[in-house]
């Protein structure tokens, strides 16, 4: 146990209430007089709306209001998209304010995916609202459907948006195409893969929900929502959707039960509950269901990549190139287009020092649920592609897969390192992480033994190595604006010390399960040398708090943390200044240590932190230039992103008879710089790895030809159970980032980034195949085994 509070494995204070079911989620809110909203979603994946008959629904018991797009004209603007990656071509549906936009709150003349909201109903009870929504009669004229990005941009494909020719949202590139092509042309060895990184349903344990209220006296709206970005949502909803003064909207996020990136987006329901609260004069509540979530909430991944890697026979990798199609779904989600392009494309060099790299992403609209982030977004798609290629390359030249990686790592003395695609890696010792992972995994002779032993049990053992670098800590605001982000990406903290010495730290980022209340208290308590229990951490309410941007891109600790630290340091300096004045000595003679300030060795002239809080509260006899109380607000805009990295090694066994894949060990060495709370970070690592394992082994948002989800609920859509959690061997190296005072890098999602790749490499190793697309379901693996068996019997037949 370190003697410092920061870095100690304190148990998360928020866990107790959540585990006991005492925490308040949006669905638990019951404002007096609340009415309930249901949303009618499209039955068709693509159709013109010929008419909506609301009469039956309006006449139903308990119904208070029914609205369709026609009622919202000029009232609710479309939801804007705020990450516009640009590129050689860039097309969006329009927004009346000239921002790129946009999706309508309710579909007007056309629906573009199954579930696309066409009407909203408010009634006295949730059941009445749902029944009335089901009673709406929508007359559709079906249109042809397109579900894949590569098909959507072909000539003759069905067109979704009038302002988006060929369904092309963006053709985006990074890196040096000519250099990459030349290196590939000249290379001794070239390996290529076609990869489908399948779409997944983002599945936080709490589906989304919101409550809207309107006070006609003050004309003020309040939105309670399961959001990871309350401040940002306030800004966008007030300024670009409702068109009301910023001061007239307050956004509050109660406890949020997981997000994985989904709850940073604007959704139609948020605007609807606010508008309908005003229309009905009642608070309006909407709670999504698990089944509803499958179409109401942004989905993840979904890329088709053609990937090429070039190198020399002696194991030097010279160039990597990826030409990808990204499926954005029916509309641009709030930041979806940036995730699918920049976050993926700039990341494709991973840990390796290539001479040339190039990526082109064609992002297209299709008749599917809009795409957004999912834990590790973009970077996981890049790393799966890259690390599969590296294995292919190693196999092609007959070199050990770990050795190929080692020979190509960015060396420890090369930082800051420009990866040629737009990222400047901050710090790292990649070889140390690789060595440590290989050592813990028992790689080498042990593997061969285990392989033989498994074979004797009718199982095929496979080992998969995957390294990663994952850009995190979003981000430097100016840089993000160059990436096409409409908005600042700094973070804030306000620290207020109460007369008793207890404190309230109000932060701009929001916890959706990352234990902010525990870890931020550790930052403050550590700085002042006090008990972390005396630090209350408030967040997720725009009323009376400093602005913030929210929790995404693994940024809270590495971008919000330094703001909190800066606020504490400002107050500490004030305490020292005040104490010096009180004791009549120079500031330099006063030392703050161990929770007290004073002249060293002079107990008469020493005061505790709490005593100083009281002194500044009373403001008696203090010099005129010392303002009363301890209260400071700080903002932090990092000079650059930070770049966590690591190496994961998965070992799997495949049952030869059934094709079932079992992850028998999972070794991960992650480097996220300095860690605020190792217990909390371990939780993030384990959850993140499981997320990647889950994509690799079971998850897939399958659409039927008619655009309907084939697995519309958890009876058939597979998510991991406790029994799917592998046996973990976790360790870390610690390479601080120079970009913030904490030396911290992102940690919340990074371990997802290589996890699917590690499993993919292990499964392909076990099967002895060049490539197999995820998810590695038993039947798919069984077919691959059968093909292999067929091939080997074939071979034998020719031999004999």
């Amino acid at each position, binding site marked *: 146990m370190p003697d410092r509070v920061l870095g100690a494995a304190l148990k998360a204070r928020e866990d107790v209430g959540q585990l006991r079911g005492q925490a308040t989620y949006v669905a638990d809110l019951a404002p007096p007089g609340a009415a309930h909203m249901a949303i009618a979603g499209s039955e068709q994946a693509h159709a013109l709306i010929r008419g909506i008959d609301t009469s039956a629904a309006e006449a139903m018991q308990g119904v208070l209001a029914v609205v369709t797009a026609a009622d919202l004209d000029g009232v609710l603007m479309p939801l804007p998209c705020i990450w516009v990656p640009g590129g050689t071509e860039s097309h969006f549906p329009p927004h009346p304010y000239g921002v790129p936009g946009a999706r309508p709150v309710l579909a007007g003349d056309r629906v573009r995916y199954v579930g696309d909201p066409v009407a909203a109903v408010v009634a006295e009870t*949730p*059941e009445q609202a*749902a*029944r009335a929504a*089901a009673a709406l009669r929508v007359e559709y004229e079906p249109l042809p459907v397109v579900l894949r990005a590569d098909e959507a941009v072909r000539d003759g494909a069905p067109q979704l948006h009038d302002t988006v020719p060929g369904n092309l949202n963006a053709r985006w590139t990074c890196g040096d195409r000519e250099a990459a092509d030349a290196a590939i042309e000249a290379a001794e060895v070239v390996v290529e893969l076609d990869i489908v990184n399948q779409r997944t349903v983002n599945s936080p344990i709490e589906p989304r929900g919101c409550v809207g209220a309107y006070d006609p006296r003050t004309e003020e709206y309040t939105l309670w929502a399961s959001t990871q970005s309350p401040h940002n949502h306030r800004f966008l909803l007030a300024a670009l959707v409702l068109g009301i003064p910023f001061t007239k909207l307050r956004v509050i996020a109660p406890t949020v039960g997981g997000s994985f990136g989904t709850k940073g987006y604007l959704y139609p329901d948020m605007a609807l509950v606010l508008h309908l609260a005003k229309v009905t004069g009642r608070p309006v509540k909407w709670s999504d*269901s698990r*089944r509803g979530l499958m179409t109401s909430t942004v989905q993840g991944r979904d890329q088709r990549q053609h990937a090429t890697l070039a190198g020399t026979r002696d194991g030097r990798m010279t160039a990597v190139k990826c030409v990808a199609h990204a499926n954005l779904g029916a509309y641009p989600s709030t930041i979806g287009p940036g995730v699918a392009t920049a976050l993926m494309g700039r990341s494709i060099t991973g840990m390796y020092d290539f001479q040339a790299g190039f990526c082109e992403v064609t992002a297209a609209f299709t008749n599917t649920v809009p795409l957004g982030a999912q834990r590790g977004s973009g970077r996981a798609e890049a790393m799966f592609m890259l690390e599969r290629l590296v294995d292919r390359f190693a196999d092609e030249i007959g070199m050990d897969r770990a050795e190929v990686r080692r020979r190509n790592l960015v060396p420890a003395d090369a930082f800051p390192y420009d990866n040629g695609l737009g990222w400047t890696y901050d710090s790292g010792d990649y070889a140390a992480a690789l060595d440590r992972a290989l050592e813990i995994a028992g790689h080498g002779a042990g593997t061969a033994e285990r392989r033989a032993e498994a074979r004797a049990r009718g199982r095929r053992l496979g080992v998969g190595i995957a390294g990663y670098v994952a850009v995190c800590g979003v981000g430097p605001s100016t840089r993000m604006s160059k990436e096409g982000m409409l908005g600042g990406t700094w973070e804030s903290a306000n620290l207020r010390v109460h007369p008793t010495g207890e404190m309230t730290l109000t932060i701009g980022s929001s916890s959706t399960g990352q234990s902010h209340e525990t870890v931020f208290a550790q930052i403050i308590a550590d700085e002042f040398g006090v008990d972390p229990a005396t630090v209350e951490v408030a967040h997720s309410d725009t009323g009376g708090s400093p602005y913030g941007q929210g929790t995404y891109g693994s940024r809270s600790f590495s971008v919000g943390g330094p703001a909190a630290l800066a606020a504490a340091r400002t107050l500490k300096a004030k305490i020292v200044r005040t104490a010096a004045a009180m004791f009549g000595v120079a500031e330099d003679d006063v030392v703050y240590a161990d929770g007290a300030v004073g002249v060293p060795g002079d107990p008469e002239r020493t005061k505790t932190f709490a005593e100083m809080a009281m002194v500044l509260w009373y403001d008696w006899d203090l010099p005129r230039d010392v303002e009363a109380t301890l209260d400071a607000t700080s903002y932090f805009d990092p000079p650059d992103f930070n770049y966590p990295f690591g190496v994961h090694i998965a070992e799997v066994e495949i049952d030869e*008879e*059934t094709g*079932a894949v079992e992850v028998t060990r999972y070794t991960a060495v992650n480097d996220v710089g300095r860690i605020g709370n190792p217990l909390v970070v371990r939780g993030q690592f384990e959850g993140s790895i499981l997320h990647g394992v889950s994509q690799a*082994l*079971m998850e897939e948002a*399958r659409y039927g030809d008619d655009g309907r989800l*084939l*697995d519309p*609920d958890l*009876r*058939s859509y*597979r998510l*991991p*159970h*406790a*029994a*799917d959690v592998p046996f973990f061997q976790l360790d870390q190296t610690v390479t601080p980032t120079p970009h913030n005072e904490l030396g911290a890098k992102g940690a919340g999602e990074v371990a997802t980034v290589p996890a699917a790749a590690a499993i993919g490499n292990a499964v392909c190793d076990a099967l002895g195949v060049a490539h197999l697309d995820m998810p590695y*379901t*038993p*039947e798919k693996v*069984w*077919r691959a085994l059968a093909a292999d068996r067929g091939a080997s019997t074939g071979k034998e037949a020719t031999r004999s």
Partner: protein
Amino acid sequence: MITSSYGFAAPRTAREAAALLARHGGMALAGGQTLVAELATGEAAPPFLVDLGRIESLRGIEPRGGSVRIGAMTTLAELAAHRAVPPVLATAARNVPDPLVRNRATVGGSLRPSGRASDLAPALLALGATVHVTGADSAVTLPAEEYLARSPAGVLSAVDVPVPGPADGCAVARFADRPARPPLCAVAVRATFAGDRLGACRIGVSAGGPAQRPTLLERSLERGGDASPDTVRGRCAEFVSAAGFATDGAASADYRAHLVRTLVVRAFDRIAARRVRDGG
């Protein structure tokens, strides 16, 4: 959320329940593990629900000579824990991996076809269970295979399960695509031995898929072969053809057939291993 409206009654006797079901065209509600989800999605929207939870006569496990009578409302957890229940049936119940489901799901509910494979049904088939059905004004007793094939109306009140004898070897085997999930396929075998020779065999199979009901494979292996794995493997291939299985989003027919063959062999292997261990 359940948005359909329905009448509801919780009668005290099976006869009353059967009468209510007949009168209203309703559905019985037992542990609700299948039905409640179907009500929420709208897949089931009966005008009337008859809760069987208050009917005392549907509860209890009672040994009766060579068999055990198991009330329809017995939960899988109770089944898994009761001494009088043949071990292979208790294992089948325990194989349902989710303890919350085991605590609610009932024997009666497990014998209604649901399009999904069942752990329990194959064991009841292999053991040769008979099913008691209470109608509004009649009662019938029929073999489990017939009940599963026809799903007659009325309240399933109890099953009688013959207790395997010393010459019987029994085992279940299941395969789920992930360890804690419901099975893609499940099988149960009861093999009767005459010394080293294999006599009559009953094999219960549940392989899921639309309209796929658990079935009994009885005709085979009976011809008195030896019980070596190779013989069993050969015979399985003979009678488990892909023809009988369904293709749906969860699995293809040929994969299902392959799994059934694999599982039958695994069940026989388990029986053989136990016989070796017990010196039988």
